[in-house]
């Protein structure tokens, strides 16, 4: 192959802005940089000096796709800092809210952004034309997720009902129960869509990933949990920064996360599935098996199937939680500020979202650390591209660029959170 370079200046169908520069020499990658050029958004310094009760709603504004994740991780951290215990019914309501976010985020990505890659289509316009029934079903399922978020959180986007200590107002039981028929439909639709994804043509691209995901001994961890990994012991969120460190890289405005020993790791659907699939229950595991998944998944292209299995799980969980719902007597518990540090995690659709706050005795925020899942996955995405690019070295630049975009889209990256995201340039020397 002749030496040279390939450039993909803007990666499409991603949340945020970034670019990929790839240099190839004789079929070998000599340089690869995933440049996140979206400016830093500086949410952490915005919070310093503010009352801790402002943090959930302000951090939720980081992202219009995963505001619930920021609300919940923020509350977990601050409640931990203050030594507050949240009653089980509040945790269940947060879990239900989170199920809504998983459904809407995963379905949007899987069928409006990701599925066209496997069908040889350019975008959602084409898939709407060629697979109308599928897209109609996906849109209805996505709307179910929105409706769940609105019912618990007060509105679909940037829900406003979550506070440190619980909720501002408990949802009326009648309003939630009215969702049950649609949730029931959603269970069947999610299963059907998961099975459809199993029919897509996936490249053979298994990678030796290191995974990290939350774990709860009693159920699939979503709204909180300890941190489990494929390469070491399970640990509490308070050890997150000791176990995973962030590195600045010159080509990215988003920091890269690595393990304490400097290795890339992955959070998100593949990590959750591989570490916790046994907790998904019979129906999800049957759907996963029928869609071609084993007990673990190390092929990032199959993340579309894992996401839809997670949508099925979220629908089943929503059905269970709504059916059992009884309005709590009080919407929240009192949380009294106490000087100290609190760390909290939850499973955003894209993976573990970590928040840490240090507050003074009046609840004033002194320092903040946020680690969104996309930033944690950036090093792994680069590793995937390094493994993929040599196999495509002889491809025309347009094909190579498109394949690189597809590989990045496997992660549903949210550069709004990581700081924003993609443009691809490939250089052949």
């Amino acid at each position, binding site marked *: 192959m002749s030496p040279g370079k390939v450039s993909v200046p803007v990666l499409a169908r991603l949340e945020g802005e970034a670019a990929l520069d790839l240099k190839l020499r004789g079929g070998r990658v000599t340089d690869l940089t995933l440049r996140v050029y979206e400016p830093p958004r500086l949410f952490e310094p915005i919070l310093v000096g503010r009352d801790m009760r402002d943090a959930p709603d302000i951090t939720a504004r980081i992202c219009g796709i995963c505001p619930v994740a920021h609300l919940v991780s923020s509350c977990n951290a601050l409640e931990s800092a203050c030594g507050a215990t949240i009653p089980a019914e509040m945790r269940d309501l947060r879990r239900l809210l989170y199920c809504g976010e998983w459904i809407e985020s995963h379905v949007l990505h899987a069928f409006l952004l990701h599925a066209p890659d496997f069908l040889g289509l350019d975008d959602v*316009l084409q898939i709407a034309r060629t697979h109308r029934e599928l897209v109609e079903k996906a849109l209805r399922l996505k709307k179910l997720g929105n409706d769940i978020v609105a019912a618990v959180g007060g509105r679909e986007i940037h829900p406003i009902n979550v506070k440190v200590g619980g909720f501002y107002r408990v949802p009326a039981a009648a309003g939630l129960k009215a969702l049950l028929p649609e949730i029931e439909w959603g269970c069947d639709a999610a299963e059907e869509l998961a099975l459809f994804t199993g029919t897509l043509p996936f490249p053979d691209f298994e990678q030796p990933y290191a995974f990290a995901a939350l774990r709860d001994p009693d159920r699939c961890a979503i709204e909180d949990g300890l941190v489990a990994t494929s390469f070491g012991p399970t640990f509490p969120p308070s050890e997150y920064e000791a176990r995973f460190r962030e590195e600045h890289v010159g080509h990215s405005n988003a920091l890269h996360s690595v393990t304490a020993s400097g290795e890339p790791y992955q959070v998100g659907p593949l990590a959750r599935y591989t570490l916790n699939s046994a907790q998904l229950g019979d129906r999800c595991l049957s759907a996963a098996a029928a869609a071609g998944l084993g007990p673990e998944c190390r092929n990032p292209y199959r993340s579309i199937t894992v996401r839809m299995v997670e949508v099925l799980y979220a629908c089943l969980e929503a059905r269970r939680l709504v059916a059992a719902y009884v309005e709590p007597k009080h919407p929240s518990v009192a949380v009294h500020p106490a000087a100290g540090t609190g760390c909290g995690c939850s499973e955003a659709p894209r993976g573990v979202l970590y928040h840490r706050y240090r507050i003074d005795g009046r609840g004033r925020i002194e320092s903040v650390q946020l680690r969104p899942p996309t930033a944690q996955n950036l090093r792994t995405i680069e590793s995937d591209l390094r493994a993929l690019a040599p196999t495509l070295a002889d491809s025309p630049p347009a094909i190579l660029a498109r394949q690189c975009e597809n590989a990045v889209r496997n992660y549903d990256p949210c550069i709004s959170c990581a700081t924003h995201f993609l443009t691809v340039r490939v250089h052949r020397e």
Partner: protein
Amino acid sequence: MIGSLPVLAGMGNELRGDDAVGLLVLRAVRLMAPDAGRYVELGDDLARLLDEWRDAPVAVVVDAMAGGGHPGQIHVLADPGAAEASAISAHGLELSTIIGVGVELGRSPRRLIILAIEGDRFGLGEAMGPGVAAAIAPAARLAYNLLTSIARTADAGASSGTT
């Protein structure tokens, strides 16, 4: 009920200066005429429009745009196609994409009007510029007039069609 009322949708991000104008125009109209139609505030999730505006007699969408014009200048795009609408600011799935998907799936309003208001301050945390702020009231009057006059015309058309 979805489908029977005109829809006014405001798009934007309140934390990004001029980008908030679509939301502020919507709120001004809602204050003026709360029963004139269905009001839909949109952030990142434009896919909602496929349900909200489906079969509506008219949908008016208000958003900021960065077209290089004078801040506060109001553009009216009547029944735009996907390519025409792509000049409007993007929020995740772009409005032009949603318009195209709506056409493919038969989930479009009967008439679609876009009010695009020129802005030049879109930085995170920036205040809205005076030119765009001054355009809120006239844009709200225009949106209200479009909403009510086209809806009336559509009603009349529907009535005459059945007699």
